[in-house]
């Protein structure tokens, strides 16, 4: 089942209209092992020049190993990696990382502590004329919006600044590809998203191709043109963030990407579902037979407040995020759903509220008794 999904993804990508010269990086049926244990199987994807791709997955899914393989630190057990038209990794041979002309941003920035910011950024420019080096470093410092920190040492900078300097250092020699290994994971949540957007803009402005690895879905969505969701060493879905959110291929992707809860439903006809929150006619058709029990994914933004509605639910928990509040609501039969209310709808736990389901585009999977929460 897993296997077939990955293969399907691959074929869809192969069928892509990308001309070969547009493709910067391609992995073909790559297997990876660490210390004899399989870490990834049958990985295949292509990244075009100028695109930003993100590998998203829970820890231990093999995404970092995949990134290190692209960088040339890790050998492939099967398959091959092609970078800029050159096969760089096969089971028998491997181009060294220092010969691959790529930049990498590490989880803990890996700046050289005894060098100033300028010297750090200029490190990869060794051997070029001093004038050119100086100009490039100044340009990069402006680009990362920190023009005045050139003479400071890494430990004098904040975590976000350090990570931006690390990006500048990786970009300095104008690599064809930048790899980022959970670059924002040591930063706090707000900074993470802001920096994600900022880095996205910098990469786009420079037209740099990038592959990032993260377990944080918001970070991934802030950065990516395409996201590959990985689980147990395989790519489950390779798609745009919009499609991942709205068309997850399976339950795992649906739950991993974005918030949401499943409610039980029965198929009335190919477009209509009889759910725990009422009968919903969607705008897509389902392939299962009439009467099939299914689980329907309700995203928080599918559930809206409506004081007049006959559908009532009890507030269990609220999480105030500013403009909106995410409420955990319990239906009469105990099923819990999430709901996004504008912040002026203020309710306390225990209160009963009226809700309306505002969703046409419902994702459903065959019923699985293990995953529906009913508590």
């Amino acid at each position, binding site marked *: 089942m897993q296997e077939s999904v990955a293969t399907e993804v691959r074929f869809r990508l192969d069928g892509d209209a990308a001309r070969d010269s547009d493709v910067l990086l391609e992995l073909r049926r790559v297997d990876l092992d660490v210390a004899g244990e399989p870490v990834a199987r049958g990985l295949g994807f292509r990244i075009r020049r100028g695109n930003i791709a993100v590998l998203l997955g829970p820890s231990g899914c093999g995404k970092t190993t995949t990134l290190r393989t692209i960088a040339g630190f890790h050998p492939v057990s099967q398959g091959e990696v092609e970078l800029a038209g050159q096969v760089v990794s096969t089971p028998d041979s491997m181009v060294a990382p*220092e010969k691959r002309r790529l930049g990498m941003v590490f989880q*803990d920035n890996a700046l050289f502590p005894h060098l100033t910011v300028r010297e750090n950024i200029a490190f990869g420019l060794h051997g070029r004329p001093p004038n050119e080096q100086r100009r490039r470093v100044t340009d990069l410092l402006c680009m990362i919006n920190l023009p005045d920190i050139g003479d400071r040492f890494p430990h004098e900078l904040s975590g976000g600044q350090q990570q931006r300097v690390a990006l500048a250092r990786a970009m300095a020699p104008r690599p064809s590809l930048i790899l980022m290994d959970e670059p924002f994971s040591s930063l706090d949540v707000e900074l993470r998203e802001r920096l994600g957007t900022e880095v996205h803009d910098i990469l786009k402005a420079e037209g740099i191709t990038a592959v990032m690895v993260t377990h944080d879905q918001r970070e991934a969505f802030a950065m990516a043109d395409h996201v590959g969701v990985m689980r147990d060493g395989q790519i489950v879905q390779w798609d745009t963030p919009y499609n991942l959110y709205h068309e997850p291929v399976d339950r795992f992707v649906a739950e991993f990407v974005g918030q949401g809860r499943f409610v039980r439903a029965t198929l009335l006809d190919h477009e209509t579902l009889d759910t725990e929150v009422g009968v919903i006619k969607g705008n897509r058709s389902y392939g299962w037979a009439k009467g099939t029990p299914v689980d329907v994914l309700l995203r928080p933004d599918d559930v809206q407040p409506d004081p007049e509605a006959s559908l009532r639910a009890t507030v269990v928990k609220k999480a105030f995020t500013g403009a909106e509040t995410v409420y955990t609501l319990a239906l009469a039969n105990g099923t819990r759903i999430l709901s996004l209310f504008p912040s002026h709808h203020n309710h306390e736990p225990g209160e009963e509220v009226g809700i309306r389901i505002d969703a046409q585009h419902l994702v459903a999977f065959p019923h699985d008794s293990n995953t529906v929460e009913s508590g």
Partner: protein
Amino acid sequence: MPEPVLPARITRDSDASIIRCEGDWSLEHLRRGLARLGRRDQRRQWTLDVSSIRRLDTAGAMLLLELQDQLPGKPAFDGLQARHAALLKLVEEHREPEPPPRPVRYGPLASLGKATMDVLAQTVAFLAFLGEFASDALPRLLRPFGVRWKQVVGEVQQAGVHALPILGLLSFLTGVVIAYQGGTPLEQYGANILIVDLLTITMLREMAPLMTAIIVAGRTGSAYAAQIGTMRITEETDALRTLGIGPLEILALPKLLALLIAMPLLTMFADVLGILGGMVVAHTMFDVSFTDFLNRMPEAIAPSSFWVGIIKAPVFAAIIVAVSCHHGFAVQGSTEAVGKATTRSVVQSIFLVIVADAAFSVIFNLLGL
């Protein structure tokens, strides 16, 4: 009024084959080894009576399940109260499927074999590193403009100039000790002047190069291993590679060149200070004046003695750099590994230096030097 404490207890009724669990099976009232049964008990059929358990929490439930696992045939819980049943079921569903396997204990012979194989593997790894280093360094040395001389100078400063005070002091004291210890028996024969021969030959041929190597291994070799090891942990070595710079080129080669330059010079410095120390003792204790001492010196030693000492220095330098860089680059995982690598690099470089020194003695003897 607080409830009286009723610690968790197990009583065995061997005649009726009943194990009774009683009391509060909650975290604070459990004790270690409570549910551990003897081998003999594990072979019998028991009834597991849990009806008198007063309180149960997840820790207690875990322990109960463990107890049940040890009993043959996994007897059901007898008299389980309804209020405990739900918790027990929940814990049973969510506990780790199998306890982690106990680490295998090796017998003495197996341990010896394992240790031997480890040593062999380490040797192979060291040789592999040497090969990699050599194949990286030799082409670079043929194009000397590409070598990072600025780094080399910095390393000479660190490893050479900064080592002068400590090396000077220790060599001086070594000279003092040799002159003092050697002078006493010589004085009995009235051959005081032979202190000069004794001292110069020992210092120049053996002590000065060896002292230098030991100090450099302890001071500089350990620093090399720690520096490179730390860079491995912080992924700085990986960062170097993605910037198109080989870590050997920038970390190992300048260190090798620096020690190749610094160690012969340090050895000469140790020669001078050691002889100076001996001279002071000879003058004050054994009536050999400075003038006599210096006049005697050219007669006492052939110039070859001096060169024999100096020629060892670059070899020792290469050993120290190779061993410490090898251990530095072999660091993986945690910061703890850095400490281990540092210790190992010092011990192994001193070991190899002394082995090499012994080899030199044999070779020089054969060559008649």
